């Protein structure tokens, strides 16, 4: 699993990568996930929906990330423009 963050001037940057089934990796992924949420980011998990459509789910805790997810994408919280 990769944790990516959208950033101005760079596009997405890799924050952390690992196998959540490996305790050491999971600890690192969870710590980075929490850090991004503390910084005010939103987290989305892309996945396939019914019929192969592309979908995304917002997650607020690492435990909500579906098993087998390839990536979590962090981006700034939306604000009214």
């Amino acid at each position, binding site marked *: 699993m990769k944790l990516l963050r959208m*950033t*101005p*001037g*760079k*596009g997405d940057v890799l924050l952390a990568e690992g196998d959540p089934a490996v305790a050491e990796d999971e600890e690192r992924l969870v710590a980075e996930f929490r850090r991004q949420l503390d910084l005010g980011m939103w987290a989305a998990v*892309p996945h396939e929906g019914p019929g192969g459509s*592309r979908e995304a*789910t917002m997650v607020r805790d690492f435990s909500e990330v579906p098993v087998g997810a390839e990536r979590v994408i962090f981006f700034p919280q939306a604000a*009214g423009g």
Partner: protein
Amino acid sequence: MRRRYVRNTARDRRAEQRARELLRATAGAEALDTYERFGLLSVEKDEYGYLIYPHRPLVAYDAATGELLSEYCVRFRDGSDPEAGERLPDADDVLAKWMALRADEHELIRTANVHPLGRQLDPAMVRRDLEAVRQWRR
């Protein structure tokens, strides 16, 4: 000394290329194709559809009739690197809106400032864009 935004065309072009690759990997090749052809994405959920412009309002429309409804102004600003500015690359901005709409349409719409049509975007242009996207998909 306080750092501030410095325009860097080469950096921004690289960032946009990277963002387009993430758009393709996340929303799919057709979404990237739509973005590269028309400069926008479109999403339809039940009775409503949205045209997603980079760094401009979302425009909601009636999915059945194509009637334009409202502008929804929403921003994703990131001040973590003052030299790079606060704006995500265009393709990241549309992907962020796409993901937020796919995941939780009501939350994003509740966050947005709602304006009547024509506040920021020319309704005639939006109608042309919507028709062009729909024609292309047929």
